[in-house]
């Protein structure tokens, strides 16, 4: 892709707004449409765009597989951790009412943390799957092959 200057500049311009939009979808999910699943996919798509344009080696430099794999587990552990936090604080598993001083703000906190866990897992899982698929490409595809 070295000669495709329009694609490279276009990707560089697009990636920051995509990531910002993903964060907006993530943390505004309580108030508007969106949530962890959508935000995770959008966040991963920014990285995938980077990988498509600049190559897998560059993508693996900014998002190493070892780190992404651990994040994938960490997201789910955040979710389960919120569940156990409710258990420890005297409620039921995944009961957010007891997380804060009153039930409504406990629910706010619980939903925010749970959605964060979902977002982290989804984004990293998409990156892991993309990196695994892209690593198998043993040859450059010619333009007329598609």
């Amino acid at each position, binding site marked *: 892709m070295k000669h495709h200057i329009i694609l490279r500049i276009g990707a560089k311009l697009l990636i920051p707004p995509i990531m910002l939009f993903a964060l907006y979808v993530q943390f505004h999910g309580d108030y508007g449409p969106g949530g962890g699943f*959508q935000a995770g996919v959008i966040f991963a798509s920014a990285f*995938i765009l980077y990988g498509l344009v600049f190559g897998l080696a560059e993508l693996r430099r900014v998002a190493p597989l070892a780190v992404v794999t651990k994040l994938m587990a960490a997201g789910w552990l955040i979710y389960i951790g919120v569940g156990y936090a409710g258990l420890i604080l005297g409620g039921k598993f995944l009961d957010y009412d007891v997380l804060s001083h009153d039930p409504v703000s406990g*629910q706010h906190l619980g939903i925010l943390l749970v959605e964060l866990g979902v977002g982290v897992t989804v984004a990293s*899982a998409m990156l892991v799957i993309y990196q695994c698929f892209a690593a198998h490409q043993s040859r450059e595809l010619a333009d007329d092959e*598609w």
Partner: protein
Amino acid sequence: MIIRLRNLFAVVMLSSVFSLLSTGLFVTLDAVDVAFTEAAVGAGITTVLFLGALALTGSIEKPQRGRPYIALLVMTALAAMLLYGTMDMPPFGDAGAPAHRHVAPEYITGTQTQIGIPNMVSAILASYRGFDTLGETGVIFTAGIGVLLLLRRRLSSRQQSGGGDAE
């Protein structure tokens, strides 16, 4: 409308377009959260992953040998059973349908008083049905681990041989 194609690249593109069109359908039905997911997952990332898979396997479907009469029979029987099952469904938009009478009213009133957030979908997804979402996240985690286990060996051997094909 039925389209038959052997060029899998065109199939992937058409399913992406179909996904984008159904996004419009979901918006018309006021299901913006579903539309959002369909646009991001169905039209976006699935297309990229399909193209990645096509790059590994080739983009033309192999012609099929023989005539799959048994498959046709099974599919017809399954379709008949499913159609028979839908005959008991309440009409579309029926306010007396069980889905609208069982727990839905409780969720609608409870979102304001118990959860206190404006987006009802988030309240149901993350709080009322928190166990479901925990399981769904687990499914995505498992999918990532599965792909990693199946494809990782070549990934790491390519790394050691400096990007060359190790096999």
